């Protein structure tokens, strides 16, 4: 199996590449991204290509001719770039890499990274949606993710290969450049004044293992991958020893600006999460992907805060003394 990991420079892409490298049934691993991998890779080939450089990306993918694509070239707004740049790079990366892989003629399976954001949070909608609930995104990022899923599915139908979509709960971890993680580590965290809706999280290692399981088992269709349990914005702030700052609905715009000035940019999908919650039923994925016990949301939060503790450095003089 020749696997192409798009978005290999991200935390998840690098981790997936490492897990794939360790498998005997994976002959070759290659990856592309506009930033280099975050850890050492032993046998994976990496090309640093910006998705905006379409010709180079197409040329590399066609030359590599993967049999499987693990598509992590999906960029979350406010993570490494602004909402417009993230949507643009995601679209370019998806169109160029998937269509080039299909044209190369060796493609057997595609799995894309998606998210629970595709379900949106309509008042009448299920509060814990499973895969049967029709997606209805309520944020630009949700629409982008649904667009990626739709594009991959169309390509799969046209060329006759199965396509899977892993709808991750927000992935938060000490090394993941997650806007939600950044916001929760501020000393003062904006929270909704009149509600406290639950949201679920996913540990980055669990997200990577789910992707590898999908590649190996070639699971078609959407699957929610969600850590057990949930947390609420008020609780998450208190758990980390932060001060929850209640925000009334008309004031979210100001809260967003204040958070941005403090170093944690907030995109609309994050405001949606804080105000209306974000959970999903992930029981199907556990069975279909054969996942071992996923780390609960509360544990993911605790790890996030433990990492955030500032450890005073001991200077050479102090150490000697």
């Amino acid at each position: 199996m020749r696997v192409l990991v798009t978005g290999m420079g991200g935390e998840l892409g690098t981790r997936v590449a490492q897990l794939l490298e360790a498998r005997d049934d994976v002959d070759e691993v290659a990856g592309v991204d506009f930033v280099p991998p975050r850890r050492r890779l032993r046998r994976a080939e990496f090309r640093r290509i910006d998705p905006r450089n379409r010709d180079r990306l197409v040329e590399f993918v066609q030359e590599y001719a993967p049999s499987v694509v693990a598509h992590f070239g999906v960029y979350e707004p406010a993570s490494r770039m602004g909402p417009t740049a993230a949507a643009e790079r995601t679209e370019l990366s998806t169109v160029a890499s998937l269509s080039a892989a299909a044209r190369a003629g060796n493609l057997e399976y595609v799995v894309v990274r998606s998210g629970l954001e595709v379900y949106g949070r309509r008042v009448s909608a299920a509060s814990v949606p499973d895969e049967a609930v029709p997606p209805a995104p309520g944020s630009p990022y949700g629409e982008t993710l649904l667009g990626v899923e739709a594009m991959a599915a169309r390509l799969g139908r046209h060329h006759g290969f199965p396509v899977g979509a892993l709808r991750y709960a927000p992935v938060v971890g000490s090394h993941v450049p997650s806007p939600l993680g950044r916001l929760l580590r501020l000393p003062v965290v904006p929270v909704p004044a009149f509600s406290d809706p639950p949201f679920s999280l996913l540990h980055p290692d669990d997200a990577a293992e789910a992707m590898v399981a999908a590649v190996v088992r070639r699971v078609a269709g959407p699957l929610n991958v969600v850590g057990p349990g949930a947390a609420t914005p008020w609780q998450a702030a208190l758990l980390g020893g932060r001060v929850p700052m209640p925000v009334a609905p008309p004031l979210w715009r100001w809260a967003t600006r204040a958070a941005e000035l403090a170093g944690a940019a907030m995109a609309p999908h994050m405001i949606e999460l804080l105000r209306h919650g974000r959970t999903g039923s992930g029981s199907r994925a556990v069975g279909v992907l054969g996942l071992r016990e996923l780390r609960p949301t509360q544990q993911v939060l605790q790890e996030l805060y433990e990492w955030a503790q500032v450890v005073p450095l001991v200077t050479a003089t102090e150490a000697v003394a």
Partner: protein
Amino acid sequence: MSPLRSADFGIDPDRIGEAEPIARALSRRLGGRYPVDPFGFDPMLADLATPVARALVRVRTEGADRIPETGPAVFVANRGLGIGEPMALGVAVGEMVGRRLRVVGAPGVPFVNGLVRRLGSVHASPEDLAACLRAGHLVAVPLGPTWLRTGAGSPPLELCAAMMGFTVYPVAVTPGGPLGAPIRPWRVRIGPHIELDDTYAPGDPLGAAELGDAMRRAVEEMLAGRAAAP
């Protein structure tokens, strides 16, 4: 890992626990050390509310041996207009097997919705009901409201499809006094589980309609005293 550092902070999300002393409970709340589930249920808050509910609603339960000690099941019960019947059923289940009961039908009113979900209410959608059962919870599904408590109320057909494949028990709940006045304990009768033709595939609309009719008939007969609980 110490209980306070585990994912559920030492509080069992399925079994009712002892209410903590106020000072300790307050310290936990301020430290954020309490579990929440994806439906918004807050077991610690529910444990604090349980003694109040038991003081307000006394129950006499028949057929309690049918309540499963573990795993999912649905209790379909009659309901008047208010929350008396679901509350009585919740108290009965808690007293008999020590498990928590999720009640389908959180109202869509801002703030109230959040509060009742914290205490165990679930949004009345087939997806949420199915997810709750898949997670292994005991769930109460009230039939349509009946003002004068003379019948069983209409079955929620949309939810019946989600219940197929799970064990469904009919329950008749009758108040202790007129208009639910706590003169005598509420009477909670749990009937034998409803058998459904196994040729129906899960989610089959015809099977759901048949299950709905069977549920209504069973509850109605128990309310009329034609079927005994034990």
